């Protein structure tokens, strides 16, 4: 018995990576990384954006091939050509965006590519019966003939897990599976993962949420800048220790931020006088000053983003005027806003912000070029110079400035958009959720950048749901509720508790979404 257990412990990990290296151009995405996943454990993989998590996962699942090192399955070195082969060897993957077919039935999604047939015809009855059995094991009783797309993302996620387990059955890689789920759904998902762990699968779990790591994982591996920081057992580890591993520094906003609410502000730059649009935002009046950050707080759908879009001329205001340096005008297009010295970093970076296939340099100079007009083309030398200057100033980490922006991490993409507007030498910068989708370490950098721009004399309007951050950099905070500007907080009033009260509108400030089951 004791011997058997000894043999069990000595059994090679189901999946192991040794000294993995991967180079993109000049950039070392991974360098000498070791990783292993053992049967019956949940192994969390953590790291900031750009740490090399997704590259490692792609190598482990066959989507990318390593430039150095080897991958072993049950102790045997393997060469993974593609995800299909990895699946055949027992490694299944579920991605954040569920990679199933929403236009086909649940049953077909479970069996696609391996449907049982008779005389060349698919045996639908057999598939549907087996699909019901499989899903019942996950506590799911649904109509397997219905379109997958008619179910919630959580159910699609579980169908994806069921398919991956059916096809592979040894290692399950979950790439940020909880990103679009609510809390009840996350709990259900975790139950499923624990059951699979009990069945002896090795589970690799990638997430941004630290508390989920502590709730689910047995061990954690942390990557930073493409290198292995360490692999540790979670029992006895504190969150602070994990954060320190991830960031390699003690991170605290209180220390990272200087100045803040008390900083002196300069003369008024622009006044939005009674700007509004029926059905979008009630008319509001707001003046921005030089060297001032105005924070905008409010829940999703409170009219924050709509307000920013009006201020940049993306949507047209049906009331009010813009007053700027003695001139009074109505904004009719973003081009006009740019000409007036405005810059705008939208909320959805991928959709509205970056030109994914253009280079870092082209992304940086594009707003400046638009402002200059197409008859005054920037020479290549000028472009290189401008891009280099702002990339250095904002510490944009790219191997070179001719690489496509889509290859950068989220935080660096955000800085590219900032650089784009800074290159136009703006007077007013509007940032909508500048830290969304960026990990904690990059948050602090963006916050520092905001403070530096304020010190340089810019007028900034920053929309953010991160109250700690808004408090850290704002001189003033306006609060939006139900498409109205309901409060303007200054000085002593600027603290998270007051803001929450204003957002909630006096009534029950403790009613946070987490409290509702």
């Amino acid at each position, binding site marked *: 018995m004791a011997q058997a257990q000894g043999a069990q412990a000595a059994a090679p990990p189901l999946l192991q990576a040794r000294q993995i290296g991967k180079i993109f151009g000049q950039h070392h995405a991974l360098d000498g990384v070791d990783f292993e996943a053992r049967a019956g454990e949940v192994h969390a993989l953590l790291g900031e954006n750009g740490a090399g998590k997704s590259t490692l996962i792609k190598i482990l699942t066959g989507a990318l091939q390593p430039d150095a090192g080897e991958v072993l399955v049950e102790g045997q070195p393997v060469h993974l050509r593609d*995800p*299909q082969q990895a*699946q055949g060897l027992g490694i299944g993957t579920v991605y954040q965006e569920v*990679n*199933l*077919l*929403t*236009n*086909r039935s649940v049953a*077909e*999604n479970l069996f*696609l*590519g*391996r*449907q049982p*047939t008779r005389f*060349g*015809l*698919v045996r*639908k009855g057999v598939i549907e019966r087996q699909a019901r059995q499989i899903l*019942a094991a996950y*506590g*799911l*009783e*649904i109509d397997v003939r*219905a*379109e997958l*797309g*008619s*179910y*919630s993302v*959580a*159910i699609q996620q579980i169908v994806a897990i069921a*398919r991956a387990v059916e096809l592979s059955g040894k290692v399950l890689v979950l790439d940020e599976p909880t990103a679009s789920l609510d809390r009840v*759904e996350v709990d*259900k998902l975790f139950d499923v993962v624990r059951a699979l762990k009990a069945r002896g699968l090795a589970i690799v779990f990638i997430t941004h949420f630290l508390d989920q790591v502590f709730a689910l994982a047995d061990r954690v591996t942390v990557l930073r800048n493409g290198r292995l920081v360490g692999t540790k057992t979670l029992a006895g580890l504190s969150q602070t220790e994990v954060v320190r591993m991830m960031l390699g520094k003690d991170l605290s906003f209180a220390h990272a931020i200087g100045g803040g609410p008390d900083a002196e502000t300069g003369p008024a730059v622009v006044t939005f006088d009674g700007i509004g649009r029926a059905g979008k935002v009630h008319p509001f009046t707001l003046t921005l000053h030089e060297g001032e950050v105005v924070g905008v707080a409010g829940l999703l759908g409170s009219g924050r983003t709509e307000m920013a879009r009006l201020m940049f001329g993306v949507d047209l205001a049906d009331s009010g005027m813009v007053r700027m340096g003695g001139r009074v005008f109505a904004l009719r297009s973003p081009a006009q806003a740019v000409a007036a010295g405005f810059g705008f970093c939208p909320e959805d970076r991928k959709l509205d912000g970056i030109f994914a296939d253009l280079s870092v340099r082209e992304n940086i100079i594009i707003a400046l070029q638009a402002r200059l007009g197409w008859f005054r083309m920037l020479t290549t030398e000028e472009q290189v110079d401008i891009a280099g200057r702002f990339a250095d100033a904002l510490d944009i980490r790219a191997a070179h400035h001719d690489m496509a922006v889509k290859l950068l991490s989220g935080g660096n993409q955000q800085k590219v958009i900032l650089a784009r507007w800074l290159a136009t030498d703006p007077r007013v910068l509007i940032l909508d959720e500048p830290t969304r989708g960026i990990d904690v370490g990059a948050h602090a950098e963006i916050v520092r950048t905001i403070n530096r721009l304020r010190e340089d004399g810019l007028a900034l309007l920053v929309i953010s749901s991160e109250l700690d951050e808004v408090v850290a950099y704002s001189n003033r905070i306006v609060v939006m509720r139900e498409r109205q500007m309901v409060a303007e907080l200054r000085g002593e009033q600027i603290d998270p508790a007051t803001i929450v009260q204003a957002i909630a509108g006096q009534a029950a400030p403790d009613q946070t979404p987490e409290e509702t089951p």
Partner: protein
Amino acid sequence: MNRSLRPLLATTIIFVLAYALAVSQYPGLLSTRVLGNFLTDNAFLGIAAVGMTFVILAGGIDLSVGAVIGFTTVLIAVLVMWAGLHPLAAFAVALVVAAAFGATMGAAIAYLQVPAFIVTLAGMFLARGAASVISPDSIGIKHDFYTAVSQTYLLLPGGGRITVIGGLMVAVFVLGALLAHRTRFGSAVYALGGNPTSAALMGVPVPRTTILIYTLSSTLAGLAGAVFSLYTKAGYSLSAVGVELDAIAAVVIGGTLLTGGYGFIAGTFIGVLLQGLVQTYIVFDGSLSSWWTKIVIGGLLFMFILLQRLIFSASAPSRKALWKA
């Protein structure tokens, strides 16, 4: 109800209503004779539309269909009248040539990642041009086999006739429906139309499926060419101009989403019948220009695109999860 069934249901209702309306005006329309002629007159369109349904279901488009039909009629005419081949042998040759043509287009789409629109546009010019090079003039076909085929039919009660080519079209629809809904190839076609990336990750052989889809479409276009040649007893390089567009119209009116992933072969059948009904009505009326067919089809097409927009983008349904306690 399944979302993708709704356009099909709408098409069926519209066909029944339109037919009832036409019959109330011209009672003569309600006869097996008219129904039989529906099938015969639209046989080549129906057969080509089955292939087009597969292409569109997979998220593609095939603009070469009409040209392939024209080319096939010329090739068959030349093989029969100049080379003295038996028509059946000529059909076999034509089908092989069409299949190879489709496979080549499919391979270009699959491996060179060129949009189907461009590849099949090139295919359209190639096929039409090749047909004109072989013979710019119409070649009449006189052969005992052709006479025999045109005189073979199934007599329906009421004097209607199911001709060989009408029956062939129905058979192609039945086989097409089986292929689409009950085989692995069919699943792969829908998968490709739904999300090619997911399909590839789920193990669907994307290049092979793409090649097969365009091979199937061109082969059926070849078959439609053979049927057209039987129907007109001639081969002409400029015949069946624009049939690909009629086929696309039939597919979309039949409820298949133009962007792929949703639809039924049976819907295309009704789409073809609906076009046939409009034509027949105009013939019965006698005073209307035949171009009214195009106007009505255009109106229907526009209506169905709006309908699909409403069904597929406005409603993003989300069923309540039924978790076991």
